[in-house]
């Protein structure tokens, strides 16, 4: 029932900068956002890992988790794949194919192409969870703490390059 992928196409272009945590001036927090009606306020990094890999599929109230991802290639998605899932794009896809195949993962992630789309979807779907650059967050969604840290805390682990210094 473990559903790690066999295949990997580890290409240099898919690699992601590793030293983002240390350089907070050049980075922006990536906020994990959920529906405002969701009572969850904090998630551990391990919980986040399980949620984004589909091995945890329900919130504590029994509602099904709907995972929202940005389009492949978007820097926000790369950050989640690298920092939370520990995978590249190809591994993530195969992971979900195999998870769906074993029946362990119930549904594929919802793919949305814009921050506004992410906000709107999460606003409308009570069980949804996704991510946004901190500057793209508004009051229509709720930001969860990660390991009791808010995104504006310097120790917050999910960070990504500012758009102006975005790596190729």
């Amino acid at each position: 029932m473990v559903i790690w992928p066999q295949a990997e196409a580890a290409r240099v272009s898919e690699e992601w900068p590793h030293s983002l945590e240390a350089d907070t001036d050049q980075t922006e927090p990536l906020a994990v956002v959920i529906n405002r009606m969701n009572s969850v306020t904090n998630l551990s990094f391990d919980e986040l890992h399980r949620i984004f890999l589909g091995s945890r599929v329900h919130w504590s109230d029994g509602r099904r988790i709907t995972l929202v991802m940005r389009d492949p290639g978007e820097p926000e998605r790369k950050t989640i794949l690298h920092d939370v899932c520990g995978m590249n794009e190809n591994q993530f896809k195969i992971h979900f194919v195999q998870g769906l195949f074993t029946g362990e993962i119930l549904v594929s992630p919802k793919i949305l192409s814009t921050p506004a789309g992410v906000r709107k979807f999460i606003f409308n779907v009570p069980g949804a969870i996704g991510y946004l650059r901190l500057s793209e967050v508004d009051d229509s969604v709720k930001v969860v703490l990660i390991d009791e840290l808010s995104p504006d805390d310097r120790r917050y682990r999910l960070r990504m390059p500012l758009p102006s210094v975005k790596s190729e």
Partner: protein
Amino acid sequence: MCCSALSAQQASAVDKATLQLLLAKIDQLESRVSELEGHRQEACGYNVAALSVAASPVAMKTRSTLALPEPARVADAPSQAAPTTASGTEQTQVDNGMNDRMDLSKTLLRIRGFADISLHGGTQQGDKTSFSLGQLDLFVTSDISDKYSFLGELVFEAGPDNIYGVNVGTANSFDIDIERYLLQYSANDYFNLSVGRGHTAIGYYNTAYHHSTWLQTTTDRPYLFQFEDRGGILPTHTVGAHAYGMLPSGRLGLHYVAEIGNGREAQSPLTQEPVQNDFDDSNHKAYNLALFARPESLRGFQTGFSLYRDMLNPTNMPKVSETIAAAHAIFIRPKFEWLNEVVLDRHVPVGISKVFDTPGFYSQISKQFRAYRPYLRYEYMNAPNNEPIFPAVGLRHGPLAGIRYDANESVAFKFQYDYTFLRNQPGINELTTQVGFTF
């Protein structure tokens, strides 16, 4: 003086004309923007202007505090991105998935296909080097509701079945098998229930890999976990009910599976479908209990065991009690895998003191180097000669080595060499080239 006054008047007139022109242009552009926004609202069904305000740099700057999870703040948060058709937050927060489910113009089915084609040759008597069409596997899922889903696997496969060493059917013809057919109910992470036909949770391999060779590292399953209609000794499929989920165990990550079903067919001679899809040959039901751990401190590691019990009813023989104990320890990371499993299949004819034990194990290791993944496996299975249920299986063990090349994210090529030792027979050398893909 006159000249300068005249030129000033002329300049003023030009400025006014330019201003009028610019104002007219602005009016045109504004009306065009309004028109485009109107089209976009019709297409998207929500208020673009509201979202534009929410996402604009000015709006971002004014949001000095985040929508952090403070209950009062969350309750008071304005719904700038709310659909304009909504009258209130509660009413607007409907599940989009539910909308999809209620839309009769859409199908709920999602279909993914898997297939493989092989070139195989070996030294076994009667074996001819052949191209072979592997299983064409249509994997179907449907998200019926928030709690219910359907999972099905329809397989088209060529060639005769091989039930415990007995060939059934004709060569080169295609058969269609419904390999999985499950209605799943998912209450929470701790309790899930599925009914129908699925794979038994005996060991690890049978739960992780189903009928797609593309998902597997090697060209085929270990002997031990070969399907019933391909010569396997384990009841890899069952028709019944399966409960599974997590156990509250913190970072230990304990999971359970409890299954009850028809068990396997045990008629003699074994020339019928081994899985009792439609009716059971006895009132006794097979059951299986499995427990495994996925500790968070060691991601990719899983260890566990399972115990399966059934009572078989071969004709012209006493009933046979079947107990299958399995244990596994596996470690899988994206670039590395190490699978180890051991199984003991015990048959005890009722009223006879003799016990027939068939032990088996395999160990498989592979490491990925870019798109290449070399692998090794050693497997062993030893059924007694006078085994009452599968007398033709006997002893077989040996190594295999191969390499898998992932040409892209959907196509994998494999090249594999097997050597198999058999009891009282010459060993078998086999070479297989396979292309497996998903579509």
